[in-house]
């Protein structure tokens, strides 16, 4: 007998009496505006906001936010960087990216999370190898709770999807909070309609 059948056989034999599967209710969300709660949650998790530029020039905004940046790589057509993603053959080539730019599908007010998938990233490693990440988000696309996010069943038919909440972080040494543990050092959200 192979290991698969041995394991499944033992599991079947040892399963305790059945317990029914409960429905997951949609808990009533807090009062107050989704946008305000989203902003507070992002800030709490170490993220920042930048006001959308009045003249609509996102490239200039990124230049002002990161004056030292040399390599800017954008996965959204709204920003033209200087590292085209369609020429990337290996994800590791993005290691020199100073600023990545991507548009999120939606945000979650409860936690300040941003839903990003391989469709938005084009090359997934962009969200982790870049030193800094700028995420564009339509302010009308903010969900209330994680139940709302996980209630969107077909969102999860992607190969890769991530709820990104603030920058990479660690508190593994004496509980001291460090941003930029292994991934992005900063995460900046720009609320701008799609």
């Amino acid at each position, binding site marked *: 007998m*192979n*290991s698969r059948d041995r*394991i*499944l056989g*033992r*599991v*079947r*034999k*040892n*399963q*305790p*009496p*059945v*317990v*029914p599967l*409960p429905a*997951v209710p949609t*808990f009533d969300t807090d009062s107050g505006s989704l946008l305000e709660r989203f902003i507070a949650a992002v800030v*709490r*998790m170490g993220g920042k906001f930048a006001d959308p530029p009045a003249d609509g020039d996102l490239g200039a905004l990124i230049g002002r936010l990161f004056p030292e940046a040399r390599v800017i790589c954008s996965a959204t057509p709204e920003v033209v960087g200087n590292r085209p993603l369609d020429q990337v053959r290996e*994800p*590791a080539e993005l*290691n020199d990216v100073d600023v990545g730019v991507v548009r999120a599908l939606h945000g979650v007010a409860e*936690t300040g*999370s941003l839903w990003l998938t391989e469709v938005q990233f084009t090359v*997934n*490693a962009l969200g*982790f*190898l870049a030193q800094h990440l700028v995420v564009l988000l339509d302010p009308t696309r903010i969900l209330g*709770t*994680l*139940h709302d996010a*996980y*209630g969107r*069943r077909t969102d*999860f038919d*992607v*190969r*890769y*999807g*991530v*709820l*990104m*909440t603030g*920058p*990479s*972080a*660690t*508190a*593994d*040494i*004496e*509980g*001291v909070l*460090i941003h*930029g*543990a*292994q*991934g*992005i050092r900063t995460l900046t959200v720009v609320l701008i309609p799609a």
Partner: protein
Amino acid sequence: MKRIDHAEASSKFIEATDHLEFHDRRLWDLRQKRDRETVGLAEWEELRTLASAIKEHALTHLADYLEQFERNALRNGATVHWATDAAEHNQIVFDVMHSRGARTLVKAKSMLTDECDMRPFLETRGISVMETDLGERIQQLDNEPPSHIVVPAVHKLRADVAQVFSETIGTDPNNHDVHYLAESQRQHTRPYFLAAAAGMTGANFAVAETGTVVVCTNEGNADLSVNLPPLTIHSIGIEKVIPRIEDVGVFVRMLSRSALGSPITQLTSHFRAPRDGAEMHIILVDNGRSERLGMADFWYSLKCIRCGACMNTCPVYRRSGGLSYGATYSGPIGVIIDPTFNLRKFSSLPFASTLNGSCTSVCPVRINIHEQIYKWRQIIAEKSQLPFVKKEAMRVAGAVLGSPTLYRAAVETAGAGLEHLPRFMMYNRLNAWGRQRELPAAPKSTFRQWYLKNRGQR
């Protein structure tokens, strides 16, 4: 196999008072942060009930959900392996890598691979393994297992980390700055991410209806481990399977709130299918779980989502440190899991508890941890795995506590005895209670004497 002596091992931890005090304070701080999060969520207790029921449903239908998960994972283009035990798991990892000529592995934190003792197995066969979680990496470089399932190096102070890093990755031994140490690890690790032939993660949840592997991290190291190398391996304990995507929402709402007191981990990653040109392997590991499922009193421990809340709240864990348990899983959850691996080796662990029940009341999936601890004590006593002194003490205590006459006589003489007995009779090898503490002064009269005098006439 040698019996773990938890009390003896703890005494070494307790000797280093600055470490002990920090450890106790840091973990209690996590507990308090957890409390602030949970009181802020009106539905918290309802979520606990829901999470527990989903897990109990999944475990009582586990074979069907494992098959459904496998079917969907295969449809997504992943390769699925099954491992009955640690040895088979390690061999599968080696074979997958070896057959593709892969000799370097970057990995995210996985308690399961620690449980399987995978690193030494691969390293002696020519595969280099890089732990990329900061805490886990510190422990790897110091040749120690993790002491906590969420914060692996929580028992170390910054000076300890500075010393380990200076001896291994070449940092300045005199620079104890935490930012400097973390940045040094980032710089040291990045080239390994870029060059690794394979990446590896564990799993927080495996979703049957989609074949998705869900991994929760704060550092982003799991996403780097999966999104760069052409070959990825996910090792998953069979109890991690849950039915639906919507169930993930219930657990993600609870996991980091219970663990660290933050509303969510910085990254909650969903790996469902390989990238173009990449391979995705999934190893479903039993290693004692199917047997535990058949233990009427103990199968509930399989509901565990590894948040560590029970450890942070446990007064014994906070003051003895995870390494003193001598097992992959320490603290209250370890106390009830470890004996299923080896009853004799871990027979002292269920006694590393005050049975205060705090672990049970913070558990997000409502595992009756302290009741299971008590049940393990009964089994260990029945199977005569108790040390002689404890057994004799319990036999005498049982006789005395079982008889009102004997009990009253004992309490009255003990009160007198405490005042007059020479020290060597109270502070000796046979009295564990006298070892680390002075016994309190005995009251002038017993409760019964007080009661009879003040209330007995009514």
